[in-house]
């Protein structure tokens, strides 16, 4: 249960009272006649062996308003692909599984490569992007929703609330991001709490007000992986394939649409998923790699907005960030105390130190190479380079699922 305070430049849709799931699903079924919804699920094979997936399949079996479900399966052998198909079989309706390592889809990736389109390395970004391509090729759906496959306490209410703002033709939102509190017996979501928000705010305090920073700061959970968007957006937005996916996608949304058409929605009271291990030593691993990618993505977006960075700026930034992050720890300590939650102040301080190092490393790579990793080109660009690509993709996926 939350308050009804509106933050920032985008719309916030709260969870007020006790909304009925039946009513919202009924309305969605009605909307889906004019605005059909596709659900995209990026998944690793390993997730099918975890605790989250059975529950997700069970819940999705009860959803009636979806026009298609596209699951992108990564890191799976042919045999495992077949297993996943059986696993997904209980879900009625149109379910397609994109076999990322199958020979047909591999050939599709090769087609991009030989035509000079860089779609990056494997990962959630690339998988989601390919799934959008399939949804576009099918041409059936006007709305695409996406969530991760590692949500332990998944409920189909999350999906319904996520889809609602974009599927409802009377609301005219093109993009809707989910948010939720990450609390069990303690507070999770450290990267958002202790990195992104303090970093954005210290950037604001150093460089002054900027519309993009304000935009990002408006999101209660900018790193949430759950969102819904219009299919048109999937055509024009470019997305990063690295860990900067969430922030980079928001940057593209910011670039292409007015904040009036963007919203965030409270999708769940609590949310649990698997946690990244913090490895402060090896920057290519886990959380550290993730934080560096996120910082780089923010710097790059700001640079493209015309902000000039210098060594001096980054030095001040480190100091400003550290002070702000320490203040933040104190705030959360109080928050934990009043709610009787566990709070390991030492762990939190260690995290802030790692994050500060990550910021420094990101700054260094950014100064060396300001262009950085390219985004995956948008689908409009891809189809103009290879006119038949959507047909090929559709054929590959349909044949795999035959």
């Amino acid at each position: 249960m939350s308050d009804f305070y509106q933050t920032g430049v985008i719309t916030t849709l709260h969870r007020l009272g006790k909304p009925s799931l039946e009513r919202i699903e009924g309305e969605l079924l009605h909307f889906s006649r004019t605005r059909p919804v596709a659900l995209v699920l990026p998944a690793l094979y390993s997730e099918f062996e975890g605790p989250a997936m059975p529950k997700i399949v069970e819940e999705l079996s009860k959803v009636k308003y979806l026009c298609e479900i596209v699951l992108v399966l990564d890191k799976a052998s042919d045999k495992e692909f077949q297993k996943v198909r059986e696993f997904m079989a209980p879900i009625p309706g149109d379910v397609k599984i994109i076999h990322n390592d199958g020979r047909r889809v591999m050939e599709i990736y090769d087609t991009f490569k030989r035509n000079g389109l860089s779609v990056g390395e494997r990962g959630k970004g690339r998988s989601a992007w390919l799934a959008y391509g399939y949804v576009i090729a099918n041409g059936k759906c006007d709305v695409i929703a996406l969530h991760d496959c590692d949500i332990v306490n998944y409920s189909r209410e999350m999906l319904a609330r996520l889809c609602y703002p974009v599927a409802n033709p009377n609301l005219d939102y093109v993009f809707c991001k989910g948010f939720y509190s990450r609390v069990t017996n303690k507070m999770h979501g450290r990267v958002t709490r202790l990195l992104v928000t303090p970093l954005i705010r210290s950037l604001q305090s150093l460089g002054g007000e900027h519309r993009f920073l304000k935009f990002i700061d408006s999101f209660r959970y900018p790193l949430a992986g759950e969102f819904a968007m219009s299919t048109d957006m999937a055509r024009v937005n470019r997305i990063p394939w690295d860990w900067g996916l969430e922030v980079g996608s928001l940057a593209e949304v910011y670039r292409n649409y007015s904040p009036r058409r963007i919203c965030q929605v409270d999708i769940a009271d609590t949310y649990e998923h698997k946690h990244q291990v913090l490895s402060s030593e090896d920057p290519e691993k886990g959380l550290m790699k993730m934080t560096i990618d996120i910082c780089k993505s923010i710097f790059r977006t700001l640079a493209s907005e015309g902000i000039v960075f210098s060594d001096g700026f980054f030095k001040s930034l480190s100091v400003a960030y550290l002070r702000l992050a320490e203040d933040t720890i104190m705030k959360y300590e109080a928050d934990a105390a009043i709610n009787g939650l566990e709070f390991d102040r030492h762990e939190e301080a260690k995290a802030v130190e790692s994050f500060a190092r990550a910021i420094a490393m990101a700054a260094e790579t950014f100064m060396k190479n300001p262009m950085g990793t390219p985004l995956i080109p948008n689908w409009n660009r891809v189809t103009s380079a290879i006119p038949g690509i959507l047909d090929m993709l559709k054929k590959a996926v349909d044949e795999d699922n035959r």
Partner: protein
Amino acid sequence: MTKIVERQEIRTILDRVGSADIVVGIPSFNNARTIGHVVRAVQAGLAKYFPGHKAVLVNSDGGSRDGTMDVVRSTRIEDQAAILVHHRIDPVPVIATPYEGIPGKGSAFRAVFEISDALNAKACAVVDSDLRSITPEWVELLLKPVLREEADFVAPLYHRHKFDGTITNSIVYPLTRALYGRRVRQPIGGDFGFSGKLARFYLAKDVWGTDVARFGIDIWMTTTAVANGFTVSQSFLGAKIHDTKDPGADLSAMLYQVVNATFGLMETYPEVWKKAQGSEPVRTYGFQYAVGLEHVNVNVERMLGIFREGLRNLREIWIAVLGQGDFGEVEALGNTGDEAFHFPRGLWSRIIYDYALAYHQRRLPAEHLIKSLTPLYLGRTASFVLEMRDADQSGAEEEIERLCEEFEKNKEYLLNNWK
């Protein structure tokens, strides 16, 4: 191919005339019914406005079987005094001859260019042989700017019914204006004035074995003049009323001819139109006055019927040309009722650019490609008619102006994708 001026009987006339200041050409094909009026108007115009100039009238005929050339040869102004204040002693020499080469208006004009070249003419004009509204003043308005050396090329400017000339208004004018940056309102008007220098320039171009010789000569002349830096102007001629010989003519064939010629020229002058930015008006001659126009029947329902039929049946082609995004918008139009139907200007301009790009990349055979534009064109025309039902002439003209701005705004899209 022999030049028409090398033919014996033409040679004889040319030798007798020697040289001329003005050549007026009238192309014809089975126009015996109307050409008399045109010849009289031209003769009166020459006598009235250019009594001191030596003029020759050329009828370049495509093998008419209804005695068109005889009508031309025998037409004289019976009572000169009734029309003219000045008296003119010698009548205008008339050359009426069948042209050579591929049958078509382009070949007819080529003969006019050759004769004007042989006579070393300073100024030329061409007028259509099916005009009912031509007056002697047209001759002055088309030739004066050239003789005064203020212009190399004079395009016509007419008042037409707000629903007439829709191919010009929704495709050719906005597209050529956005491409070449000159606001020539009637680039395919058919009645032009031009200098002897420009006639020679036209003649030297190696296009007379191509489609230009058959149709598309109008847009070719205008574009060639604009793209090669000739001074271009336009003259207000009043109303254009002509005898449509073939009312049942196939719209998609007409569209193919005009659009094919326009797209073809984009291939010839990419360096010119890529550089042009925005657009500027051209000098306009003539006193503009309001013209009473006949009522025009429009069957919007039928147009929308064909548009929806296209949506149902040409889906694959349209997706291949427009891409999923714009096709999605066109598809959404299919769901609106007749009254609420609205084909947005921006979408239309992108569609035309998409077709130009598809033509450039040869994604389909040209004829298939352009003919598949017909239902979209009818959709846009129906929308225009519905929106402008209660508008007056100037209201419709403003709407066309807004469409042109949309074309200019979206030109960047064309530039970025032209490879």
